[in-house]
């Protein structure tokens, strides 16, 4: 059971978008931005408020890749695997990160909830290939060595990589 504050915040978010069916996606996007994941309890709650069936809301939330019912790590690293990055060897970067964080294709979040590792099909930062983002900040021209350095810095919580809110 979630704390009441989660529901209060959700009410606030719904009020900002209006109680209509087409608010579903923007509302759950904001919930995810707020809590860094989409708590399943809140999805049902939102569906009720917007007058949509819970199954319907679930079908929408699971269709889009961005929504996650699992809590994510503090730092969400998204390695770009767009064409330009791929051609400039982004796979080596992903492999290095998986190796260092002890993650694989099925396990995306470290046990200490510090890092979540994902790939993204294109960040549109192709001139800076290979690129990755940590939360919203773009890191250009990465190499296996520089990503090792990066996660070391993040683990020590250096200010250079503070979370920027997704607004």
């Amino acid at each position, binding site marked *: 059971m979630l704390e009441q504050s989660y529901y209060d915040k959700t009410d606030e978010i719904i009020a900002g978008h209006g109680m209509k069916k087409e608010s579903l996606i923007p509302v759950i996007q904001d919930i995810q931005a707020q809590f860094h994941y989409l708590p399943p309890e809140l999805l049902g709650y939102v569906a009720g408020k917007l007058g949509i069936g819970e199954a319907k809301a679930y079908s*929408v939330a699971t269709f889009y*890749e961005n929504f996650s019912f699992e809590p994510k790590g503090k730092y969400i690293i998204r390695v770009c695997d767009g064409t330009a990055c791929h*051609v400039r060897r982004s796979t080596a970067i992903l492999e290095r990160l998986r190796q260092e964080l002890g993650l694989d294709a099925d396990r995306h979040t470290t046990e200490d909830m510090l890092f979540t590792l994902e790939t993204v099909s294109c960040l549109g930062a192709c001139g*800076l290939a290979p690129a990755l983002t940590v939360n919203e900040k773009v890191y250009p021209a990465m190499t296996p060595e520089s990503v090792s350095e990066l996660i070391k810095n993040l683990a020590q919580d250096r200010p250079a990589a503070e979370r920027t809110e997704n607004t």
Partner: protein
Amino acid sequence: MKIASRDDLKQARDLAAGTMERQTKRVLVCAGTGCLAGGSQQIYERLAKLAEGKDDISVESGPEIAHIGVKRSGCHGFCEMGPLVRIEPMNYLYIKVKEEDCDEIFEETILNNRPVERLLYELDGVRYREQEKIPFYAKQTRQVLENCGHIDAENLAEYLAAGGYRALEKALFEMTPQEVVDVITKSELRGRGGGGFSTGYKWKQVAGQKETVRYVVCNGDEGDPGAFMDRSVMEGDPHKMLEGMMIAGYAVGAKEGYIYVRAEYPLAVKRLRTAIDQAEEAGLLGENIMGSGFGFRVHINRGAGAFVCGEGSALTASIEGERGMPRTKPPRTVEQGLFGKPTVLNNVETYANVPLIIEHGADWYHRLGTEHSPGTKAFALTGSVKNTGLIEVPMGTTLGEIVFGVGGGIKDDAPFKAVQIGGPSGGCLVTSNLDVKLDFDSLKELGAMIGSGGLVVMDESTCMVEVARFFMNFTQNESCGKCVPCREGTRRMLEILEDIVAGRGTVEQLDLLQELGEAISDTALCGLGKSAALPVLSTLKNFRQEYLDHVVDKRCRTGNCQALRRFVIDPQKCRGCSKCARNCPAGAITGKIKEPFSVDAAKCIKCGACVEQCAFGAVYVEN
């Protein structure tokens, strides 16, 4: 200031132009996604602070007296060389600027008009001071991107000073909606999102519907990997696109517009929101715009990570709060689009062309480009090319002119192999296509498509079979699952390609790939499915020998396909230190100390650890 009439607009524009004229120097720090990642925000802050500290020339001194304008502009395009700083009126372009360079830039250039030579672009021994003379820029024609990099992307006044909203003014006060549609039709503007469908025809269809509630939708869901033209327009000149949407709204009788932007483009969303807020505050959006009687509102919807939402009917479904899945047509979007109402759906670059056409006329628009593909096209030039970045050239420019002219040739002067055009829906163009004019029709003939405009250049070190697998993996992941040919067919194709790159492929599978690809193209429901097989079909046609190498000889000439790599130790270079053997996780390397070691191919798991570990460069991949 509220712009309530045409006269108010003129006043606002004069005021903005006056402010701009009083800027003795304009310092334009690129604040596109690329340069921001390189640290341009710190550069902007430092330069602004330096300017602020000086009397008489302070940025904060107000528009009425002479001052230095330090601005954050949209993408200048030369992303490879970022962070970029342009200084007007000299038009110097500084490349790879660092925060430490700011004091020198300020002292030398801003105060004393001298260039900082070491920050200028240099090519073949020539140093270029002026941005416009650099070959990368000199060979382009920036029409849609004219303001990108030249004005403050978050400032309505600068857009007005650059002639912004003149086209809207002309449409609202000098033209009937029908006349607007006629001009766009006559201009033969074609959809920049990939299909190349006539924009004027679309508008005419919507304007002619019985239903009077209509919508204007902008597709900013630029999902093709390797494309970022639309992102750059939304980030660098958001008002131009809004103006195009408003003109569309006026032409077809719509009162509301929706912009659907990819989730991966947070900066574009922010800049668009700022632009909409500014336009609303100024009275350029809302009810009764400038007293013309025309009202228009714009909403932003963020995508949620589904490539298929770039398809029209999936996009409108997503705005409605549904799963983003395409539906069968007819009815088409122009008849029943968003919320079941007639809808004009164009992409970002298409709308950004509209104000230019309305302001200058259809004949002017035809002066560039080819007969039936007039105007210019923005491309994202990336991959193994010297000058990566955002470019704009007239339609009909040849591939060779783009890669070797604007792009400056292949990185490290390696041999050219292919260009992948149009992303996962496109095909590859090879050496014999370098003279092909890039426009909608000539590419269609080659089995490729202009797509949204991503050009990924590849040299001989790229394996085309791997590239085909890469795109198929992408399409398979993004297939929405609604229709069988795409859902099942792309999976089967991917499995075959995975077999081939893993060395398990057979010659028969190549024919099966071809057959499957053609079947999917013929039978899939939406445009994405229909084009899903194109990268495979196109590489099969152009690089059949490479496929045969993989399936017959079990060999990848580029060494990209890990499973086909053969690691060999050069006995001449090996010092017998045993470091590779100690680090080999499979125990595949053996030998005697101080004598050359060797790799047992049967045990080798091709991880490459030995290559990384060898201090003498003795381990290599045999091609």
